[in-house]
């Protein structure tokens, strides 16, 4: 994708935002991203949205982009709603880049926003007959994946804890993060299980947050805008029939998604300077480090415990704290953070020599996965 870039990013605060609704947060994030890109409103001709969990319940079957587009006064050349769970944000950027490369539009907004803290909808934990068996929520499936990793590789609870501790270490350097207080391993191990082997600190919080990026044709940027970040590679892979797939809960579709993205970008794991990995639960950080090829199978626990993914480590991961500590931004905050790092605008948490970043999205019951490889164009 040599001709497509992320030209602007924007986000609201993260956490409990009194009076917020999903719509208001999405609108705010769109406004911020377009302003950041330095674009005229009329130049934005694409709108892709991820509805979050609260608004679609409230508003029934009305297509999400229709309501949002009306609020934003848009008549775009491309629109759509992405429903890949935590892979939606990365997937929206891919759809936008593909559409732009095909000439369907020029500047496409991709937005996530939800207000589950301040405007909770009726979120149902169990899905279908899973609830009959007592299987509720993504946490149960991720606990099974964690248990399997521990059984196969002797991964320890302390190594899962190291992921949570590292996320907080990054967040202490991130002014807007939801959880900036440091976490130590003792406090982690003293906390109660939610779904064993996962504890409270293994699970990302719910947050009110809106975040958006503008994907643009590289040749159509305003002269005085920020340094664009090039979309160097992308991939997707999904597991839609988990009961038939022996890899389910053992290996993420990240392995396939990553291979596609690395090949497109003509780079490998050793070339990546930083990662923003979707981290709804600590275990998926370990699995992704292995499935993307940053660590050999079973080695990610020791890698994280040794500090390699922390501030100043050999491969900083989730440099603003990720879902676990920056707060839940639907995966779009991961893209926003990668762009800030690759522009050299990440302040105290700036990674030295940040040239190439990998961003992932992982969704539903370990079903969906999407990968972006982003490249700095800053001098």
């Amino acid at each position, binding site marked *: 994708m040599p001709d497509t870039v992320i030209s602007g990013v924007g986000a609201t605060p993260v956490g409990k935002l009194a009076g917020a609704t999903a719509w208001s947060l999405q609108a705010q994030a769109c406004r911020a991203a377009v302003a950041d890109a330095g674009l005229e409103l009329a130049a934005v001709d694409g709108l892709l949205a991820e509805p979050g969990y609260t608004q679609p319940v409230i508003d029934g079957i009305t297509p999400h982009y229709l309501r949002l587009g009306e609020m934003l006064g848009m008549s775009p050349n491309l629109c759509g709603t992405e429903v890949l769970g935590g892979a939606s944000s990365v997937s929206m950027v891919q759809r936008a880049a593909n559409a732009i490369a095909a000439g369907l539009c020029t500047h496409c907004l991709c937005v996530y926003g939800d207000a589950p803290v301040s405007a909770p909808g009726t979120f149902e*934990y169990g899905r279908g007959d899973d609830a009959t*068996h007592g299987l*509720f929520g993504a946490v*149960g499936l991720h606990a099974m994946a964690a248990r*399997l990793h521990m059984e196969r590789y002797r991964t320890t609870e302390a190594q899962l804890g190291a992921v949570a501790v590292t996320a907080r270490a990054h967040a202490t350097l991130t002014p807007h993060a939801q959880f900036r207080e440091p976490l130590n391993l003792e406090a982690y191990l003293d906390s109660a*299980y939610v779904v*064993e082997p996962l504890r409270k600190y293994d699970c990302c919080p719910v947050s009110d947050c809106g975040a958006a990026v503008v994907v643009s044709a590289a040749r159509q940027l305003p002269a005085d805008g920020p340094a664009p970040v090039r979309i160097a590679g992308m991939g997707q892979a999904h597991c839609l*029939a988990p009961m*038939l797939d022996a890899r389910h809960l053992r290996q993420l579709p990240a392995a396939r998604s990553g291979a596609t993205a690395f090949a497109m970008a003509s780079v490998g794991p050793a070339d990546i300077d930083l990662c923003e990995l979707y981290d709804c639960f600590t275990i998926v950080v370990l699995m992704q480090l292995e499935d993307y090829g940053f660590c050999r199978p079973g080695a990610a626990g020791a890698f994280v415990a040794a500090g390699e993914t922390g501030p100043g480590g050999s491969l900083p991961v989730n440099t603003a704290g990720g879902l676990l500590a920056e707060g839940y931004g639907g995966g779009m905050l991961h893209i926003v953070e990668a762009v800030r790092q690759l522009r050299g605008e990440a302040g105290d948490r700036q990674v030295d020599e940040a040239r190439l970043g990998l961003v992932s999205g992982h969704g539903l019951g370990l079903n969906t996965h999407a990968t972006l490889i982003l490249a700095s164009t800053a001098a």
Partner: protein
Amino acid sequence: MSHKPVPRPDPISHVYWQRLREGRFSYQSCRACGQCWLPPAPICPRCWATDTEFIDSAGYARLLTWATYHRAYDPAFADSLPYVVGLVELSEGPRLMAGIRCDDPTLLRVGVTLNLELEPRENGFLVPVFVPVLANKREGHAD
């Protein structure tokens, strides 16, 4: 005291749950290619043939992985805490998520042998659960 959720049969899973009501735990099989699977589907997920049938399972399985709930997301499970849900592989091949009835989850291991039991729910439903055959409790759980 609330009751645990009952299955919600739809036209695709109706036969599966109806056979369970009769005490028969079954999986679906393709007459064209022999593939066996759960959950029920309108088409063979391997060859897309529509000529499928339900076959009674012998009720033997092994545990692939599990999760131990310490929180009740539905109050009906509060009295059962901590309780275990596992990914189970039947001896005939199909995999499914199911409750694992187990007094001491710390004894569970990947590969543990499981035996089927049927747990009664409201409205005459029977739900498959699995009981591990654990080394130091072998006699207690033998059929």
